Structure formats: C-alpha cells, structure tokens
C-alpha cells in the first residue's frame, strides 16, 4: 500500500512556514532557528540536535561523489500519463508542476561516478518530487543503472526516499518493484556488491523492493522506514504503536539495519565498505 502524503513529523511541519522564507529555518525536532548557510555547511544536519533535514538529490551527489566525476544517465527520461489519470488533479498537471518546482524530470537521479576513488553506480531519490513515488521513469532509471553496473562490474549504491508506488500509473508502477528487483538479481549473480542507504522516509513499494535488497543496508538516524503507514496500521489494528515505531533505530533493534550512519560520516563509511567488498 503506498503512502502518499509526507509523514508528519513529531512537531508538525507548519512551524516552518512561520519563518521568513529563504534565510532561516527552524529545526522541526528541537526548534532551533538556523541560518540556511550554516545549515548547508553542516550538510543540512541540525547543529544542536543532529536532526537530518531533507537532502536533495543534487546535494547528496555533491556530498558523496568525487568532484567532477559524476556522469548522469537518462537525464531526460519522462514519466507518461498512460492511464490518463484524472482524480482531483490530473497526473500530467502534477508532473508538470513538480518538474518546475524541483528542476528534476522525475524523482531519481542516476549515474556513474567515483566514491573515494572507487568506480560505482549511484541512484539518489529526491523526496521533493512527488514524494519520490516510483512510477515507470523511476523504475526504468534504476533498472538501467543496475544493468549498466552489472555490465561494467560496478558496485551499486542507492540512496532511497519514497512514499511508495506512484498510484497515478496504476499497475505499471507496481510492476517497477518486480523490474528493479529482477535487475538486482542479475547484479547479485555476478557477486557485485549492492548498498542501500535509507533516508527519511522510505516506505511501501520501494521498501518492498530494491530498498530491502542491499547486501549492506545503512540508514540515516531517526529516519522513518516502513511498509504500511502508521495511520493505516493504527486504523487496522486498533493498537497503540510502540515508541519510536518505524524509525531506523527501531528497525535496527529488530535486526534489519546494518549500520546507522550520520550524514557527515556517510561518505567515509561507504568508501570503506565499497573498498572492502570490491574484487581485487
């Protein structure tokens, strides 16, 4: 079941809107008011409480990849409104507005690059684009990246964030789960390493496919990770949810996550892991 809305953070997201646009941001976790410049320099991590703000795909790539080594693939691959979906808003209109808002064509950026000197393939999902839901374009770009990685013998790293499947594309979006997992099956057959970095939030169809298949699964602190949304679970089970339910820390306690890594340490950690699992 896909979750479409942004999961609400503990303190409510409306606080941010009270702040003057552009210059300052209020940390949704601790309430600290931080200058944007300081926040950027700190990789969008709150200097007071370590809250990890949403990182865009471009910011992530700049942070991880060795300078001037990123070669982007399928930059202009577009989703299509195959089902001619018209609910309250039409899919075509929504796509158009998100393209304008984010400067992205869809919710994932893929390419080859170097990480600490190692040749890798990288996909980064961007939650700002339609909650990084997976439609045909996202599925196709990730599949092509994995296939290219398989052909070139490269490790693959996917930094995830997603509200799930893209409902507007109906069953074609669900089938992207099978398609991406199939490509990873072939990548794994050649004993090439695959790393997943879960970021806030990663849920539903993406979680139930490539985001769960890493040889090593890392996560940013406190990020929300789950299959079903907490509201749906509460309504279905009439049960109180345990404290910290569906956070990275909760899932690590339950045996799912290898390492929780703070954003400033991600690059070195990934480099070490890639180096350790690469063939010599």
């Amino acid at each position, binding site marked *: 079941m896909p979750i479409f809305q942004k999961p609400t953070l503990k303190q409510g997201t409306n606080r941010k809107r009270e702040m003057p646009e552009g210059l300052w941001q209020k940390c949704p976790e601790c309430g600290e008011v931080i200058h944007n410049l300081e926040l950027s320099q700190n990789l969008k991590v709150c200097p007071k409480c370590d809250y990890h703000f949403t990182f865009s795909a471009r910011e992530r790539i700049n942070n991880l990849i060795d300078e001037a080594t990123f070669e982007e693939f399928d930059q202009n*691959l577009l989703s*299509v409104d195959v*089902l001619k979906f018209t609910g309250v808003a039409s899919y075509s209109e929504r796509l158009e507005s998100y393209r304008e808002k984010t400067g992205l064509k869809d919710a994932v950026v893929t390419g080859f690059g170097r990480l600490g000197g190692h040749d890798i393939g990288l996909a980064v999902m961007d939650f700002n684009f339609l909650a990084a839901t997976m439609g045909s374009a996202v599925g196709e770009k990730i599949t092509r990246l994995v296939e290219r990685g398989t052909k070139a013998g490269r490790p693959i790293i996917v930094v995830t964030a997603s509200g799930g499947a893209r409902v507007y594309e*109906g069953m074609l979006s669900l*089938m992207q789960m099978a398609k991406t*997992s199939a490509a990873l099956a072939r990548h794994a057959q050649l004993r090439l390493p695959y790393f997943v970095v879960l970021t806030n939030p990663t849920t539903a169809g993406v979680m139930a496919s490539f985001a769960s298949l890493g040889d090593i699964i890392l996560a940013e602190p406190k990020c929300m990770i789950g*299959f079903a949304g907490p509201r749906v*679970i509460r309504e*279905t089970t009439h049960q109180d949810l345990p404290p910290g339910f569906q956070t990275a820390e909760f899932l690590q306690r339950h045996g799912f996550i290898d390492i929780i890594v703070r954003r400033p340490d991600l690059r070195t950690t990934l480099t070490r892991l890639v180096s350790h699992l690469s063939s010599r």
Partner: protein
Amino acid sequence: MKVRPLDFEKPIVDLERQLEELKKHSKLQGVDLEHEVAAMERKIEATRKQIYENLKAWERVQVARHEQRPFALDYLSLAFTDFTELHGDRLFGDDHAMPCGLASLGNYRCAVVSHQKGRGTKENIHRNFGSAHPEGYRKALRVMRLGAKFSLPIVALIDTPGAYPGVGAEERHISESIAVNLREMMLFPVPIVAVVIGEGGSGGALGIGVADRVLMLENAYYSVISPEGCAAILWRHRSHAPEAAEALKLTARDLKELNVIDQTIEEPLGGAHLDHEKAAANFKTAVLQQLDELNKKSKKLLLEERYQKFRAMGQVLEG
C-alpha cells in the same frame, strides 16, 4: 447454498422473485404456466448476461470480493489432486493466510503457494482475511525453493486484499519478505504460473506474483492500491472508490491490454461463486495449457523470457 446477491444484481433478484411468484401461483391455482416460467427463466439469464457483459470496474471488485467465491483451497481440492499442505517458515511461525504445499495438476507435480481468505468471522480471523505476515511470504519462498530443487513447476494462487499492515508485520520486516521473493522468483529454473483468482492487492499480491505467465480470472482485480485507498488519497474521500476503480485500470481486460497479464480465464456466467466446479475446470484447463508450453522451453530460455517480460513493463518517454 443461498448465494448473496450483489447490489448491481438487483434486476436479477427482482426477476427471480417474479419467477417464484409465478411458480407459487401455478401450484396454488393449478394453472399451467410452463411457458411463462420458461420465458421468465430465459429473461433472467439474458439479464444476467447483459449485466455481466457490462460490468464496471468497481462492480467487478465486488464480485472478486464475494465471500462465496472459490478461494485457493477450493481450487486445491477441485482442480488439483493430492494436496499436501506444508506448514511454517522455519523461522517464526505458520501463516494461515498463506497455505502452501505440494499438489498435482493433471500430470504435473507442482509446488503450490497461495493466499486464503475465510468465510464467516471465525474462519476469517483464522485466515486473517487473506492478509499475510512476513512468515507467509517466507513460507512461500521455502516451498518455492523446494519446487526449484526438485524440478517441480510452481503455481501461485493470488487472493489477498494486501499484505497485513500491523506492528508485528513491520517488526519482522514484511517489506523485506516481499522484496526477497521478487528477486528470488526471477531466478527459479522451473516454470512459474501465477493466477489472480480474486483480489490482487498490491505488493502483497506481487509477493508471489513474479511468474512466466500471469493469469487472471475474468472478475478478479489486480491493483497497486485498493480503490478505497486510492479514492481517499486522490479524491480525498473513500466514497469515490468507483471512480478510482475505473481510473486504476485494475480489471483483467485492462491489464491484458497493458501487457501486465498474459491471459484471462473465463468465469461461469454471473461469477465464479455461482459454480465452483466450472470455475475450477476453466482454471485447470488454462494453467495446464500454460505449463505445457513452458515445459518445452530450456531453463535458459525460460529465465531470459521471464526477465524480459518484467523488464518491458512500464511506459516512459525518452526526452
């Protein structure tokens, strides 16, 4: 067994009542109304045909959810022989929402995995309304591995409103259990046929749905999200489920056109719930025909075609 009529079947119900009246009248008054009765019976059949040939997506969803519809275990007793259920995932428990085991279909010894719903409250609680936990998907994986090890074709019977959204399911990593099945099913070197017999609810359905051939019963549905869930998100209210069902293109006819499924299995007129034996016979014919075709292929070709089948799904534009 008295069959519960669906809302859109009201014209049929009305005519059936008239037929009863006629019969009663004929008996009480001692008049011969044989011709009238026959004409009324013909009219009922014609009305049923007319309604069922023009079912809207949302109406099909109602048929797919009918609690008297044949469920997986009905097919296992009517179409298959020698079903031996195998219990448990050897890790945590035995999920009653997913019966799995060994069974024969015609001359094929198969490994079978399925979802099972219940009839009535007690049975539904036992089956968790056909919503499986991670241990269900992991049991299915174990049984499919047996299939791969002993060269048994795999048959999957899909009938679930979705994987279970619960605390335990999340704690035991329902996402991972589905994801691993998607990856592993791509590599089993035996023929796999999946049939959506009722509800094909999202990732929970796909979790046993990666196959060389994906079939659907005529009134089954297969969808990325329930029509009610979609309506709540995109129309802001569940009451818009009929529009959502239409927009999602979740019927066998639509999905055949989108190349998501390979074949539609015809149901008895008025839905599979009216005639379990006929539904099971149609199921058996269709699956056997697919197994005959798949059985001729080399392992290498089988796996390559399975990969390409899913590889081709989706539509994008090269900008």
